[in-house]
């Protein structure tokens, strides 16, 4: 299990971010308005905003300080990306076909090309950043409170974590410190859970199902038990870019594939019918 957790933790995407041409000084060549990054799948893309803006500062028409007054968001193919999901989840939602291809082709190398744009109003599905990076941290901690409640039926375990430990927990994400992350997350996640924190992403929607770890007969639920009925088509279930066997134990998949926000994110890809 540790080897899979390490692969999940180390998973990263090659991302090319191009800034909105409206913000760029006229005459600046396009290649100067891009930043290439390797972003961990298990991170929020919004955590990289300040770095990207600082890298492009010399080519932007507006003073960086004034830019902070604007609302920024990322887009892929004109579709705004909801930063409140892990970056890898956003990639898998937008590129499910590529994910399945990549799973079959070990030589597959992808560059995810996205745009950074801004305006006075953010799109409906994007949470505006109004308190800087502190807001992202607070949002993430609220996710963990939910996770703790789902797993244990109470948030007491996470409330018992000191402020200092909570800070270390967050910084373990930013510094990619898996040991600290594991030390704290294993205190929140019990060996035997009542319910499993799952978010299912299907057809531009997300669902948070009630997912008991055991069925009525006391037998471990399988992944297929919480996904059946969601689509009339044949489906593939993806997590962290990996196609998950449908008959796997839900708890075992959770233990291996949980994201840094404590949820198991499952992306459903509907397969075309065979003709």
């Amino acid at each position, binding site marked *: 299990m540790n080897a899979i957790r390490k692969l999940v933790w180390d998973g990263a995407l090659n991302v090319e971010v191009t800034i909105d041409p409206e913000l760029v000084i006229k005459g600046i060549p396009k290649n100067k308005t891009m930043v290439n990054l390797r972003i961990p799948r298990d991170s929020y893309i919004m955590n990289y905003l300040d770095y990207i803006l600082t890298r492009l500062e010399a080519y932007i028409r507006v003073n960086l300080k004034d830019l902070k007054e604007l609302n920024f968001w990322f887009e892929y193919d004109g579709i705004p990306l909801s930063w*409140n999901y892990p970056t890898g989840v956003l990639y898998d939602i937008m590129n499910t076909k590529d994910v399945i291809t990549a799973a079959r082709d070990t030589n597959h190398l992808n560059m995810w090309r996205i745009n950074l744009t801004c305006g006075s109003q953010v799109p409906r599905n994007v949470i505006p950043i109004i308190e800087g990076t502190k807001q992202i941290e607070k949002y993430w901690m609220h996710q963990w409170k939910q996770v703790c409640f789902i797993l244990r039926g109470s948030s007491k375990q996470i409330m018992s974590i000191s402020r200092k430990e909570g800070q270390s927990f967050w910084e373990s994400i930013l510094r990619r410190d898996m040991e600290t992350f594991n030390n704290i997350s294993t205190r929140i996640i019990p060996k035997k859970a009542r319910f499993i924190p799952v978010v299912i992403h299907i057809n531009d*929607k997300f669902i948070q199902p009630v997912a008991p770890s055991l069925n009525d007969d006391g037998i471990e639920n399988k992944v297929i038990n919480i996904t059946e009925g969601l689509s009339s088509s044949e489906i593939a279930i993806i997590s962290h870019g990996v196609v998950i066997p449908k008959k796997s134990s839900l708890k075992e998949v959770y233990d291996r594939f949980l994201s840094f926000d404590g949820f198991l994110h499952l992306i459903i890809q509907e397969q075309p019918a065979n003709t």
Partner: protein
Amino acid sequence: MISHEEYKQQLKNLYESTGFQEWGKCKHIHLSPSYDWLSINADFPSNPNISPEQQDFAHLELKIVYSVVYKEPQLLLRVWKYAVDETGITVKVPVFPPDIKDFLNLPAWIQINLDIHSHDGLAETWYFIHPCDTSEIVGMCHHEKYLERWTSTFVSSLLP
């Protein structure tokens, strides 16, 4: 805690009573046909923190929903403001003041953060009042009055 079915029944009863209409800030109220949620357009609470230059605020939108995770009612909030769009027409747009607790004069114990609420496939940003300590805050009461008591604590007392 309250079951989803009890919540829906109590929400319907509350809507049919005069409870919300008697709350002085209520301008408009709507109950979903499935009794899953109730929305209220309300005046802003009296607050010296709202300065004159902020007077183009239109109204406060409240939404009562059911949290499947916490098995509790949950209050969502949005602030609407008048703005002029690119065609010169005055429209209402949602705004998200960073100091929402000061802005609405909310007590210190309230935990509030922005999150996405999905309804009928439409994802939207709202302020969420965190429901994790709801049972302790609402206190012991007759179960059939749970939502009434919750409303008194989280709506009319919070936003007088």
